[in-house]
């Protein structure tokens, strides 16, 4: 279970698979996720087809992990750890589904070439 921090409409997703490897996913890894909870569902229902309801509960989407509670060590010996696990939904081509990312993302995304998500994020640590 991860938080989804973009404006695609999902707020909580469940990881069902890590794409391309048999280990756990870390920051910058691609996963397949099922949308479990929609962001402010009643408001979305009122407005109908707004930008905030691109995905629905039960949808299976690809996502990129942007924050982990597990420590991630960098090349220079510093270590970063966030208080939650979070991801950003993407489509199969690798472009983000939402148009905005609210919240800090890990700097490891740069190494793994997710520059689009990095440029959308307000901060990186």
């Amino acid at each position, binding site marked *: 279970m991860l938080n989804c921090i973009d404006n695609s409409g999902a707020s909580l997703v469940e990881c069902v698979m890590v794409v391309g490897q048999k280990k756990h996913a870390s920051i910058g890894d691609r996963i397949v996720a099922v949308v479990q909870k929609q962001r402010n569902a009643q408001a979305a229902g009122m407005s109908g087809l707004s930008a905030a309801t691109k995905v629905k509960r039960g949808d299976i989407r690809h996502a990129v992990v942007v924050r982990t509670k597990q420590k991630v060590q960098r090349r*220079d*010996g510093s270590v970063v*750890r*966030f*208080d939650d696990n979070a991801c950003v939904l993407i489509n199969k081509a690798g472009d983000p589904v939402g148009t905005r990312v609210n*919240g*800090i993302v890990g700097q490891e995304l740069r190494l793994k070439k997710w520059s689009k998500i990095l440029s959308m994020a307000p*901060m990186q*640590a």
Partner: protein
Amino acid sequence: MNAAPLARQPLGCLKAGLRQARQQRLFRRQLATATTKKPAAASRSRTGPGLGPLPEPNFYKIQDPKTGKIRTAFAVYNPPSVIKDAHSSNIKPKPVTEFVDGKPVFRLPWTNRNTTMPKVLTAPVTDPLPALHAAQIERLDPTGARTAMFAKTKQGVRAGDILTVTHRRGGEPFSGVCLSIRRAGIDTAILLRNHLSKVGVEMWFKIYNRNVAGIELVKRRLKRARRARLTFMRQSKHDMGSVSEIVHDWRASRKVFTSGSAEKKKKAAAAAAAATAAARAKSGAGKKR
């Protein structure tokens, strides 16, 4: 030497200042000997509690086959022979009964005329690892500022203080509450915690890392923390939240003392210059006409 921290301390703690001066005098004395004699050997012969001169290492280089540049190198320190000898001499010899001229004589085995005393070297036993750590710290922190900052002294940083770490690579400096200090020689690291965009972020920094351009003490904890590791501050009940406001205020207050006053001085100087220029012009005009 390193007089800056002394100046930064409040005037009240004269005792602490004097103590530091005493320490620095000792340090200076060592440095003086280091400069007068051969510096290469002196840099490795860092003295301290339990630290002797570092033994000569064997260097191994790994060269790039294409360019011929040294990719990496490492040194292997053999355990000094002193230790072995000391160990072997730890076994206490039993007294031997000998008969000299028909009389029994008790004596220790090495008191025999033919055998010499076993080698017990009086040189200090040097463990290579602490000596290596000391040498590396001296290389990465030549002024001793970082060591002094995180020393276990009254002036040193403790868990609970708010720190700011600046990177050499740029990017925003990371500030946060120091949750713990992991003291491990050259690997000494600090754990900072902060809230960035409402998400808790924790970062470990190696204090002797060259990428860490600066570590600054923003605010001390009001009351001394009674734990060495404040991991309970991760719980929402004890969490401090974001320290960015405190850091912002600190930055602003620092500007008053530095750049702000400099600007004022500049303005004052400019005004004074303008006044003198005007006076000169007046006097010049008076002389001319």
